[in-house]
């Protein structure tokens, strides 16, 4: 009879108890697998180096604008592969509750800079050529039943239309995102038409996006851009586009601290539960372990046997918990598009391994030690 069989037999002795302990380990690791990726999303300090694109923002306020001509000047800088810009359109689509983002962009430059936007060649051409064209992410299109060729009516808030009343755009494409780091929810409108028809603010954009030849040049290009506009009317603040998106997420609150608090409370309880279960299980089996010793099992072997039991339970619980987390994590996208980008990564796996090891040892070592130290005669007499 090998060790493995002995461990399995021991675990199956009190199936209900083993099952419940593993189930509570599953919930703890499911929470870890769900919350740690969210925490990373909010706390990772992404450096500029290696960033795919830069975002050039007005320095002082998100309510400010940059002149569109700044884009042309940035394009002439070394290492810059391409430049596009975005202007927050806002407005209302059907109901104020429909809050997907709407941006005015220059179609050709924008599509060239965003290879992750998957659009058929025909729809790509249509977006570039249609003056009143718009494209929308598949998730939003499905949510509101939009089809290519539909008219999209937007009621303006910031940007009044010279022709009065509402803005009419023609939906010429529905896109998906490659290697989706977020759900395809945004709507993009043709900037040229938008700029001609807006009541005020001609030539002003919300921010400029910059593509780089060499991602490692991000820091130096960012510094050059900010130097170019220092002390001008339109001072800039350049960061990686990812960092810009995250800066909003971080302003939601100290998610890192909250998550750490929740997980701390959960794992403290689960470790206690597992330790209690293990010591109870070993106490009940004192006589059996004494028999094993009588049969010639060394102290070390008994120690390993008991420890293996707690390791097996923790391992099973941790693995199933992460599987559950993987299944649940997709549902975060329904809470917010940004949370949908959470993925179980190396850090989550590292934490899982570390916490599983700690729980297995905390729960397994004390009873294993007691079991290996006991005197056979006492143990057999006590259970007699």
């Amino acid at each position, binding site marked *: 009879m090998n060790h493995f069989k002995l461990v399995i037999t021991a675990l199956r002795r009190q199936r*209900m*108890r083993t099952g*419940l*302990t593993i*189930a*509570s380990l599953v*919930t*703890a690791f*499911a*929470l870890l697998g*769900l*919350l740690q990726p969210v925490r990373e999303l909010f706390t990772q300090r992404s450096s500029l180096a290696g960033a795919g694109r830069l975002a050039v923002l007005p*320095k*002082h*306020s*998100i*309510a*400010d604008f940059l002149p569109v001509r700044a884009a042309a000047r940035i394009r002439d800088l070394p290492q810059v592969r391409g430049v596009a810009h975005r202007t927050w359109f*806002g*407005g*209302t689509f059907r109901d*104020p*509750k429909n809050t997907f983002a709407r941006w005015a962009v220059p179609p050709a430059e924008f599509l060239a800079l965003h290879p992750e936007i998957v659009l058929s060649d025909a729809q790509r051409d249509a977006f570039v050529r249609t003056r009143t064209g718009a494209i929308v992410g598949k998730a939003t299109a499905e949510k509101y039943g939009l089809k290519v060729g539909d008219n999209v009516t937007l*009621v*303006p*808030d*910031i940007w*009044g239309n010279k022709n009065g009343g509402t803005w009419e755009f023609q939906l010429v494409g529905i896109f998906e995102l490659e290697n989706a780091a977020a759900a395809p929810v945004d709507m993009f409108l043709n900037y040229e038409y938008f700029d001609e028809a807006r*009541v*005020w603010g001609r030539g002003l954009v919300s921010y400029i996006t910059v593509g780089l030849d060499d991602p490692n040049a991000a820091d130096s290009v960012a510094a050059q851009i900010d130097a170019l506009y220092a*002390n001008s*009317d339109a*001072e800039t*603040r350049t960061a990686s586009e990812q960092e810009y998106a995250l*800066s*909003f997420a*971080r*302003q*939601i*609150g*100290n998610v890192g601290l909250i998550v750490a*608090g*929740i997980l701390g*409370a*959960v794992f*403290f*309880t*689960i470790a*206690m*539960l597992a330790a*209690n*279960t293990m*010591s*109870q299980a070993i106490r009940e089996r004192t006589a059996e372990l004494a028999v094993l010793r009588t049969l010639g099992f060394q102290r070390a072997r008994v120690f390993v046997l008991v420890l293996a039991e707690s390791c097996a339970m923790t391992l099973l619980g941790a693995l199933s918990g992460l599987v559950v987390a993987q299944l*649940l994590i997709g*549902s975060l996208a329904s*809470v*917010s598009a940004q949370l949908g980008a959470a993925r179980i990564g190396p850090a989550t796996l590292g934490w899982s391994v570390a916490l599983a090891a700690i729980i297995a040892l905390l729960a397994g070592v004390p009873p294993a030690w007691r079991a290996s130290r006991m005197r056979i005669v006492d143990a057999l007499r006590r259970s007699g």
Partner: protein
Amino acid sequence: MPLQQTLAIARVNLRSLRFRLSASLVAVCGIAGVVLVIVALLSMARGLESTLRVSGRADRVLILRAGSNSELNGAITREQVRIVADKPGLAASGNEAPISGEIYTSVYLPRTDARDANLPLRGVAPTSFAVRPELRIVRGRLLEPGKFELIVGRRAAQEFAGLAVGRHISVRGTRWEIVGVFASNGSVFESESWADGATLAEAFKRGPFLSSITAKLRSAAAFSEFRDAIASDPRLQLHVWRESDYYAQQASSSTGALRIVGGIIGTIMGLGAIFAALNTMYSAVNARTPEIATLKALGFSAAPIMGSVLIEAVFLSLIGGCVGVALAWAIFDGYSASTLGATFAQVAFEFAVTPGLAAAGVGLACVLGAIGGLMPAVRAARLPVVAGLREA
């Protein structure tokens, strides 16, 4: 009779709890942890909600450009403010109408945790203070028109670095002196900074547009008269919100995600706590198998035995629930935090562990305990007498 039996057994069980201390503690801690986390998350939602709700009054209106959902997106002319001031339904006050056209923008500043965040900056008119009589200066003094001066809300001063009276901040090459700190019943305005509107418009080269109009009605009942007068004037493409409705809508949209996330976390943690309670109660029943069999042999029926196990489970979770609520209250009640509001700027608020939340937490604990105790209770009741006695 069965009730007496139940209580008799329960009393013995509870007295013997100290012999099963570690197992019982696990159940208590499990429940306390769940209650702590859920009450903390809900108290955050409750605090944010009450901050937004006290901001709006039924006898005040917020006027935005038609189609606009928040003050950040407004574009209103001064001419429109003058037209609105003549509409019926507004409160009468001396020679000046209680109406203020305001600029709403935000500036990027370091918070006390050194991370940059958006501080709301409101360009106000002299009438803004008459429109919001709840606002009072707690340190320093009011603004003087035409000067580069700021007053900051009590909570903004806590959340952002360097917003003390007498300090200066530079924005866009202009230097602003902080001359006062104000409070306003814990409303959302306490998260803002205020400057003289005309000075701000010039310094920020904002052009002639205002973001919103706030006005005081004669009474809450005058709302429809006023709204209809605005709607029927073709010169005004404006939407009138009753101020309380505007903030109620923001409250429900900004706490929605928090409640969903709290729900997901709470469900998973609740399951874990039920497993812990089940485990504890099953081992309690196991440990007492001979005793239970003896009781049955003496003539106790199944119901009191079941009831006594349930009572023990609920008792343990009641302790856990009270511990959890007490911890949540001690750690989080009044804890100040800030989040991203509807205008992409910071809204500061305080966690509020209300009596209602505390009761809900303890109630939840009892439900979890009852669920965790039910199956072990059934097992105890079904225990065959002979097998149980033999084990002894």
